[in-house]
Each structure stands twice: as C-alpha cells, then as structure tokens.
C-alpha cells in the first residue's frame, strides 16, 4: 500500500511542530518570577533542605523550587559546560566549599550583593566568603568505637598508635581530610599537605582500609571492622544518636571546619528568586532546624541561640576548641588539588 503525505498534511504537521516548540520555549519565560531550579545533593540532605528551608520559607512566598539532585562533580561539570550560555540550568547551586572557590575563580558564580541578604554579616568569619551563603558547617572530628578502643585517641597523631594498627578507616571522597590529618600530625598545616603523604604511606603499610562512601565507613565502624577514623561532627552525631557505640574527639592539633554553601550561577534565569533563596538560607530558622535534624553546627551565633539547650550541647564546638579553629586554604587546595588527587589515586591507593 502506498501512502504519501500530501501538502495539506505536511503543512499541518509543520504547524503543530512549530506550536509545540514555541509553547515549550515560552514556559520558562512565563515562570521566571516564581520558579527556581536548585542543584543540590540528594538523600537526607535534600529532604532536610526541603523541610527546613524550602517548604517553610520559600513556598509561602510563592516560589516553586525544582530540585536537581546530584553530587558535586556533575553539577560542576554542568556549570562549566553551560558557561557560555546566556541562561543556565541552575538558579542556585549547593556545593562543597573548595568547589565553590574554584567555581568563583572560574567566573561561574556571582559575587553576591550581601546588602540584599539579611544576617550575612553575622556568619562565622572562618567560613564567610563574598560568593556564598553557608548551607551547613561541621567540625572534623576523630571517631572511635568505644567497644574496641581502650585508649581513646586525643590527636590525629594518635591514629598512628600501635593499638589502632590496621584498624583505621578512611574515605576515598574525603581524601583531602586524610591528607590534612596526616599533615597536621607531621608538622604540616592547612597550606602544606606534603608532610601528610609520608604519614599516610605509614598508615597504608599498617593496613589502612579505604571506603567508597560515608555510609560504608559508618557501617565498618559500627561492626568493628575498623575502630577509628576521621569524620564530620554532624555525621558522628547522627550515628551516635542512632545507637552506634562511638565517641567523638576534637583533635588537639586543631579543629578544621568543613562547610557547604549555596551560590548563584552567573547565568541563572531567576536571580530575584535566587536572592530570596539566599535570604532563607541565611535565616536562623533554617540553620537551627538543620542543627536539630542533621547535627550541623549553626553558622551564626543567633542561629545557635535559637536551638534548644540539648541540641546546642550536641552541635556547638566546645569553648576550649573555639580558639583553635583551622580555616581551609582554598587557594592552596585549588592549586594543588590535581597533584594531591593524583598522588592519592596512583601512589596511596594502588
């Protein structure tokens, strides 16, 4: 059977296609004032950002937040790939602090007009930057399983003690955390991780275990496969609250603050909405809620004061360590990231 498309049919199909494309193109333009795309992490982080920030603070303003969940890497790649586009995918991105620094250096995220963000000047100075509103902050701590460890570690250097030989765990994605610990235990510092390489090779020789994720590390710690390791205070609090027999220790060499933040890409479609998001993200309400459910340390004194006494006791960094906070040197990490990662993958992990 022969069936040829006649002129009228062809014109009708062309018309329908054009109308469909035009309709599709007009949707983002119509929704520009109320719809916002947030690139963030998935899992419980996403659920808590929705519960503590989006639903109570943005939805009542008529802002619809569409979430694209992924890890840091894919979001960073998308921002780089869309660099030359006038309008990108994201209106707000949620990234780890060193990634944010890199994105700012590459000209991919905006320098914020901080006068438009209420409470910005109250943010803990160690983590305050002109390009981001911190989403969460947590101290790096040493964790140990109380059922196996008789002599609790007090410093990073104690992770190399004979009692913990072959029982220390590290996490692949937190390789910089491991290098920093090694450096601090071996005369280095936050701007010089080189001494950490030698210490980590000692740990490798002693039979260190490296896990692919926080969850795998947590499970190993809970079962006694490993007895100690380095982790974020917020995770440690969650695990401990979940009944895992662990204790956390602030290392005597100094307390490193890790943080994550929200930033606005230069080619965001909805910058007004993004600033409304930034205001919500800097609010006491959001940070006190995050501290309560996720164990993060609030980023402003007023947000810490807004938490209950019981939560404050869990998440606040003790006064005796507050004077020994160590700042991440983003410029050093930016310059050395690839060589440090190469060393980790090729020499330490091989």
């Amino acid at each position, binding site marked *: 059977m022969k069936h040829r498309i006649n002129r009228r049919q062809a014109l009708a199909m062309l018309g329908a296609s054009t109308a469909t494309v035009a309709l599709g193109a007009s949707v983002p333009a119509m929704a520009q004032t109320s719809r916002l795309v947030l690139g963030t992490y998935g899992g419980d982080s996403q659920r808590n950002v929705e519960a503590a920030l989006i639903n109570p603070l943005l939805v009542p303003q008529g802002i619809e937040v569409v979430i694209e969940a992924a890890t840091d890497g894919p979001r960073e790649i998308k921002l780089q790939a869309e660099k030359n586009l006038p309008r990108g995918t994201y209106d707000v991105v949620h990234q780890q602090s060193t990634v944010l620094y890199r994105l700012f250096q590459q000209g991919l995220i905006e320098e914020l007009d901080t006068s438009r963000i209420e409470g910005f000047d109250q943010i803990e100075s160690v983590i305050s930057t002109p390009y981001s509103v911190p989403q969460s902050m947590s101290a790096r701590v040493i964790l140990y399983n109380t059922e196996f460890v008789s002599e609790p570690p007090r410093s990073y250097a104690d992770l190399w003690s004979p009692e913990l030989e072959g029982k220390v765990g590290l996490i692949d994605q937190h390789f910089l955390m491991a290098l920093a610990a090694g450096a601090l235990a071996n005369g280095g510092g936050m701007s010089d991780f080189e001494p950490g390489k030698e210490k980590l090779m000692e740990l490798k020789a002693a039979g260190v275990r490296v896990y692919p994720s926080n969850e795998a590390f947590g499970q190993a710690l809970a079962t006694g496969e490993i007895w100690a390791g380095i982790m974020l205070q917020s995770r440690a609090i969650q695990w401990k609250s979940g009944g895992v027999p662990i204790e956390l220790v602030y290392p005597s060499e100094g307390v490193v603050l890790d943080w994550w933040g929200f930033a606005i890409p230069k080619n965001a479609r909805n910058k007004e909405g993004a600033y409304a998001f930034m205001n919500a993200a800097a609010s006491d309400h959001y940070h006190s809620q995050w501290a309560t459910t996720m164990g993060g340390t609030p980023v402003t004194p007023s947000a810490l004061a807004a938490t209950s006494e019981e939560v404050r006791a869990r998440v606040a960094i003790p006064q005796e360590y507050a004077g020994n906070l160590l700042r991440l040197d983003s410029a050093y990490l930016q310059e050395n990231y*690839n060589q440090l990662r190469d060393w980790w993958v090729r020499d330490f992990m*091989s």
Partner: protein
Amino acid sequence: MNRVTATGLMLPALLLTFMSLAVPLVVLFVISLRPGYPITVDAFGAASYAEALLDPYYLRILGRTVLMALAITAVALFFAMPIAHFLARTSSRFKSILLLAIILPLFVGNAVRAIGWMVLLGERGVVNTLALELGSASPFALMYTWKAVLLGAAAVNLPYLVLTLQSVLEQINPSVEEASGSLGATPTQTWLLVTLPLMAPGLLAACSLSFILAMNAYATPVLLGGPRFRMMGPAIAEEIIVQSDWSVGAALAFVLIVVTMALSVLLTRVVARSLVKS
C-alpha cells in the same frame, strides 16, 4: 511502499540516532584534542592521547579491564551454557517461570544488584558469617576486591548470555544430536563435534556482547571494587568528574572504544577460526 517513502519514514529514526550518538561522539573527540579543557584550554593537540596511551597508570588499568572482561565473560559463559541448554531442551511446564527468573534481574538496575552483593560479600555479610560459623579463623576479604567485581559483573551479564544462547540452541534440531548419539557418539562428543559448531555464530555473538558490557562496566566496579580496584569506566569518570580534566577523560573514552572494538573483532575471528578448524 516505494523506496522514497520507506527512506522518508526511516529518516526521523536515523536523525535521532545521529543526533544522540554521532554528535556527542564528535564533540567528545574535539574535547579530547583540546588538552586542559575546560579549565585551561591549550592549542589543539594529541597530548591527552599521549597521556592516555603512554602513562603506565592508565595502561595498567586498561590491561586490568581487558583481563577482567575476559574473565567475566568466561565465568558468565560457564554458568550460562548449562542453563541455556536446559531451557532450550526442556518441555517442562515451568519453562516460562524459569525464563522469567532469568529475565527478572534485568528489571533491577546494576547498582541495586551490586548492593545485594555487598550484603552477601561484606566482612560481616552472609558469606563471611557462614564461613566463621563453619570454623574459618578470620573473615575473607571479598568486598572491594577483583573477586567481588568478577562475581557481580558475571551475574549482570548472565541473563544476556542465557537468552542469546537459548535462542540459538532452540534453532538446532534435537534430532541432529539424536542422530549423532545413534551413530555411537558419547554425549560429550556430540556436544563438542555437533552442537558446539552449530551454535558457534550465536556463541560468538553472546561472548562479544558480554565482553563489551564488561569492558564498559561502571556501577559494578565502583560499588564492588571500591576505590582501590579501578577499571576503565570508573577511571574515565574520575578524570571528568573529580579531576575536571575532560580532555584526558575523553581520550581515555576513545581508547576504551577502540580497544573494545578491536578486541571484539579479533576474539570473534580467532575463536571462529579455531572452531572451523576443529
């Protein structure tokens, strides 16, 4: 239907294939020739290919990937052959249920299946708990080793092999095998001298499919091999996602494509020739 209409009807599918396969490959190839992309873009050149092909680190990973792909195919074939033979020859009323049991894993993503293996193979997993109960002095290190990847990836490829081999075996008339038996051949002789040569083209297709899947595996090596046991798929992702070096990542991707294609063709020819000789 005349040829013009047929071509016209095929055009949308061809265009879709071109846009979704050829265009990204061309873009990837251009990126592979721009060292440093996207952070610091240098002039066009083959420096990324030099790194991908000459760096002993990547060569080790490539060699490991080829060996693993061969081993995964061999293990999957070892289990697939009797299952496929049984399914092809059985007239049991449970045949459709058995077939469903083979197909069912394809409904579950590789990552989810890998998590099942993690529960089985972990230091406190089912296997080690049983081993300790049975008197083993210490748990076996299975997770985050090549052994876990081999098992997990072979299980992923098993349904593809079983289904391919079963359809090939069903096309071989059982009376041919019966004739061989009636002429005095043992079951082993019948299988080696009659069935195997008849199913050779399908067998080669199944092995090629498994080899290609194993060469390009990502989720299974990441989840079961962990950070220490690296194959090419995770290594490419590491370059692009973690190191932000798209150019080397793209060059590695092309090296993997070319090596996979070349080895698939080579293995198919070598095996086909040896079967013809036998």
